[in-house]
């Protein structure tokens, strides 16, 4: 279900565009931010909201790998293995994360805390190897650095 608050956000996004359907991608991103992923239900609601056939929305959602049709963990770890990172050990970083968390590419830990993705260039080549956890960048990674980052994230939250 799309909440009234989210709907209000849609309304304000739509106002930025001369053509209603142009608001599709920003609306998808906003929805994903709020709900974690784009469910079939959300997609149907967005299609209705924008007067688009649902199939058009699916085409867009499946085209962009950063739009997700399935939930991910609380910490979505995206490790770059594109050329600069690869040359500087990106694959090893990926393996390190994978082993420590016990999950493979595209998987989520059973406690729902972490998920892991292998991604293309994050635009951080000058500080390669790089990874991104949700919207936070971590650069110049080493095995030790990765361990520290994960440890910090694994700490039970203070209440």
């Amino acid at each position: 279900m799309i909440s009234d608050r989210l709907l209000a956000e849609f309304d304000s996004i739509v106002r930025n565009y001369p053509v209603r359907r142009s608001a599709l991608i920003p609306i998808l991103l906003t929805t994903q931010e709020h709900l974690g992923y784009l469910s079939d239900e959300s997609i149907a609601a967005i299609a209705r909201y924008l007067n688009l056939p649902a199939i058009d929305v699916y085409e867009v959602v499946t085209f962009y790998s950063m739009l997700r049709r399935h939930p991910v963990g609380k910490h979505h770890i995206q490790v770059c293995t594109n050329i600069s990172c690869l040359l500087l050990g990106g694959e090893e970083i990926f393996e390190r994360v994978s082993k420590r968390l016990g999950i493979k590419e595209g998987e989520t830990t059973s406690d729902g805390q972490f998920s892991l993705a292998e991604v293309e260039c994050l635009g951080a080549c000058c500080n390669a190897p790089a990874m991104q956890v949700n919207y936070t960048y971590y650069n110049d990674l080493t095995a030790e650095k990765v361990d520290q980052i994960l440890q910090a994230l694994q700490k039970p939250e203070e209440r």
Partner: protein
Amino acid sequence: MPTVTINQKSLTVPEGTTIIQAAEQLNIEIPRYCYHPGLSIAGSCRMCLVEIEKMPKLQPACNTRVTDGMVVTTQSPKVKEAVSGVLEFLLINHPLDCPVCDQAGECYLQEYYMKFGLHDSRMNENKIKRHKAEVIGPHVILDTERCVLCSRCVRFVREVSRSHEIGIFNRGGQSEIRLLPDQVLDNNYSGNVVDICPVGALTDRDFRFQCRVWYLSKADSVCNGCSRGCNITVEANRQRAHHGEGRRVMRLKPRFNKEVNRWWICDIGRYGYKFIDDPSRLIQPLEKQGDELEPLDWSTAAERAVGRIREAKQRGGAGSIVIVASPQLTNEDLFVTRKFFGVDLGIDQIDFRIPDKNTLSDDDFLLRADRNPNTRGAEAILLDGGGFDLQRIIESASTQSFGLLYLCEQDLVKKLGSEPARRFLGQFDYVIYQGSNENETSGLANLVLPAATYAEVNGTFTNFEGRVQRIHAGIEPLGDSLPAWRVICKLAQTAGFDYGYESAAEVFVELAQTVTEFEGLSYEKIGSEGMKLPETQPVPA
């Protein structure tokens, strides 16, 4: 208007014409996957690349408009290399399962590979595996491995059927045709995606593994499914009797007619051919003996029919005979019906209109509520000047009694309901049924005369707009059945009227001379596209 030169041939075309359209007029073949004249231009497959003088790069012919003085070549080494390269990419992950693919023989991967490819495979990597043989709707099956992602099917459901079931999901090498989760391709035009798919990705469930396409013979015809009169080809297997369980007609395909159906037909029409080879076909004359219908030969049957007609006439006059023709019959059939019963026997109670209790409706595209191909023709041929009201007899449930009913190709039990049909038929001492298939109504007749189906005869139908269109026999009349006009001629001859028609064409000549609305028409003028009945000129005041 710009003049373009393609492969040294020049042509002047209207502003806005694309290179691919101009080439078509010059009979120059430019290969294409995404381009289809009935859909918007995608310009995505790059099969149609051509070289244009003064342009550094090759251009897609489907998406480039002709300008004045443009010089195009489709045969330079550069073009050949590019087109063969595009094909090579398309074939990288293609499963090459032609031996089990229904499209083989009419597949544009095969066709273009032979014409523009002929390269050896250079791929050592494994092919990407995808979804195969997915049933995606009541009529269509999808094989994503064979798909070349031309997007024709996507544009069809977006622009023509406007049903939006299909899309291209994912990106790059992962792209593939998919439907919405839990949705099926189910609209009355779904079969058309099979026709426009240039490869074997979308195939027809009805035709699946029935027959190799090279065994099919094709006859130009017109759909009998409704009064639109969509142009079709009837495709029959006459070479491999053991295929498709002996069925002769294997499929119907749309035939382009700009004025009627363009490239499309509806599913009701497309799959409505099954009655032609159905076991319910009437293949010999039958006569009721007690409760059973017993076979008899044509000359005995004709004598029996004519004898009964004479008897009824002698006893109760022409007014005791009712003729119910059918809007399923051709103009030629109807004309001979009118000539024999109306003119020569003087029977004026002739009609064809049976009210249908099953209310049908138009869809918003081709399909018409009137599910008969020749209502307009029947009106023109049978009703001019006739004041007979069949409806009144049917509805009044009169206790009036008649001598004889001659009923053609109408299942009264289905249309009126069992009880009203029996009541109506009960008013007649003798009922003759002429038709192609056995049904509950034919079962109630005293004499049954087997007629050919539209796929087995030559003739014409007149669609709701008054367009007269020709149909051609694709197969022989089954068993002893005869084209309806020949059935009537047989009766006429037995009654002493020899019309001497050798063919439907000869009937039409006389029809055009006799029936005012058809004046001036001929098979030549009708041609393959049909011709509208000349408008009745308004009388000047």
